[in-house]
């Protein structure tokens, strides 16, 4: 009898240890990014990293580690992605949540979820062989590997995230809201757009945040179609270089222990902060929506 109690305690301890281990991974990642990242600044000043407009670690004599062109590359491609994915994603989510039922709903949601699981190299490859020639022909530009292509692919890749989080947000709106609207004579359309959508606004905003996180963190697809010149982008048809693809391109060519190597961890730290902030905000928005429905 006592043995069983001891076993019970011991097992609880094992479970707790694993839960703590899982959470500590986050701290571990943060610690390593900081530990290596700060060493960048013994080679280049922090302010030059944050506000420098040139990223050229290979420059002979004086290499420069300016974050801005990469940050701009990430934000520009993500902005295009969201410009496409927000309206399309929210429209799709409203249609799925308010109009689709039964097996049609299950099929559509399954397809969207399947696409979310497509390997990003496969999507990047598609952008390379289909989208790039198409963009080059339609806009009569020499190369289709540019900001527009990256933005389009990122938009497609963040659509599933936005659709499924927004659909969840719409579905937790209580049925009584819809019934009350119908009782007052509102049509389904008015109910969906004037009652349900505003009631779910925090959750919808969370969907947008998570879509942003998905787009800004994507590496391989962007690496394959963005053209990867680390310059300040001026037009849709300029090649761009994102933070993620810079790490992917340069980690292999930098030597362990020099400023270049450490600067890539500093870039990783920037990504880490962006992702963490995005997630925490999204999480609190989802909580806020759920709380707003409890009396």
């Amino acid at each position, binding site marked *: 009898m006592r043995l069983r109690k001891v076993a019970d305690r011991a097992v609880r301890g094992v479970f707790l240890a694993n839960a703590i281990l899982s959470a500590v991974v986050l701290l571990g990642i943060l610690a390593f990014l900081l530990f290596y990242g700060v060493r960048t600044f013994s080679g280049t000043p922090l302010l030059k990293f944050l506000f420098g407009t040139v990223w050229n670690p290979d420059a002979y004599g004086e290499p420069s580690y300016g974050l801005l062109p990469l940050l701009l590359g990430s934000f520009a491609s993500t902005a295009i992605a969201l410009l496409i994915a927000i309206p399309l994603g929210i429209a*799709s989510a409203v249609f799925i949540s308010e109009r689709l039922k039964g097996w049609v709903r299950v099929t559509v949601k399954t397809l969207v979820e399947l696409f979310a699981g497509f390997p990003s190299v496969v999507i990047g490859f598609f952008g390379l062989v289909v989208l790039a020639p198409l963009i080059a022909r339609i806009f009569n530009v020499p190369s289709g590997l540019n900001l527009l292509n990256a933005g389009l692919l990122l938009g497609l890749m963040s659509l599933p995230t936005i659709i499924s989080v927004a659909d969840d947000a719409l579905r937790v709106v209580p049925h009584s809201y819809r019934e009350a609207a119908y009782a007052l004579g509102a049509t389904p359309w008015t109910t969906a757009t004037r009652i349900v959508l505003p009631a779910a606004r925090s959750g919808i905003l969370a969907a947008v945040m998570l879509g942003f996180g998905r787009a800004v963190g994507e590496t391989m697809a962007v690496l394959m179609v963005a053209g990867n010149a680390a310059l300040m982008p001026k037009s849709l048809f300029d090649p761009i270089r994102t933070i993620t693809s810079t790490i992917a391109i340069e980690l292999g060519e930098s030597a362990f222990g020099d400023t270049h190597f450490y600067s890539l961890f500093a870039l990783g730290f920037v990504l880490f902060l962006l992702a963490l902030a995005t997630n925490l905000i999204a*999480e609190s928005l989802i909580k806020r929506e759920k709380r707003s429905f409890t009396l």
Partner: protein
Amino acid sequence: MSTTETSVPPARKLRRRRFGDNVGFLLLAVPLALFVLFILYMFFYLFRNGLGVINWQFLTQAPTKGMTEGGIWPCIVGTVLVTFVSLVFSVPVGICAAVYLSEYAPANFLTRAIRSAIRSLAGIPSIVYGLFGVALFVTGLKFGLSVLSSGLTLGLMNLPWIIATAEEAINAIPGSFREGAMALGATKWEAIRHNVLPYAFPGILTGVLLAVARTMGETAPILFTGVTYYTRTIPTSLSQKFMALPYHLFTLATQHDQISTVRPIAFGTALVLLVIVLAFDAVAFVIRLRVAGANKWQV
């Protein structure tokens, strides 16, 4: 509109409103329909271009003549191997963490912190896991560029996915299952082991299969932790470098010096990778549908 108007609107007006409604929803359906068509088009495009390349030799032979001929067997083996290593780490740790969170965790600060950390992990970009893998496994623990380093890096990445789905599966088991066992004298662990985990198993399996699918397609975490352009031998130990399907596709598509010559092989690799990933997804979805049908737990 006057405030005294209480009569029902005339039929014509009602019809117009219903028509407006249908037009509105139809406009909403357009982007969704386009997206679904795009997904199907992309799949069939890859299918049409890749299918011609795939045959028994392509699947079972190593690449030859600077990748311009031969098959992708070492890449398939490498991808399966690292994914397996990742699961050896993440499945036990993930399930234990999920059991703690759903069965034991008290509502306090520590629990909230753990949950929040795990959820945040799921949103960390995969390239950041790659950096962490380089810092911790490759150089820190001196595992070098190896199957082990890559597998563990992937394991850290898919850990939060496994925890999330396992916790959901365990939470779906009604409290009465545990109470029944404990009322008969079982300890909490005994109740969990005999009355909760067996019923949560299909749900947990679904999560693991989805994690397998996504892990197999990941490139960024293995990029600097052990994957290589070409090895002559299939890895026989955890300390060797390996080839992998997604990286092979990446190099064939963008890095190879005869890109147009190897394009058919790239299409074949893309299709094989996609089909393997979709196969795991499909099995997971079938199990999930059956669980949803069976687990009504109605008394």
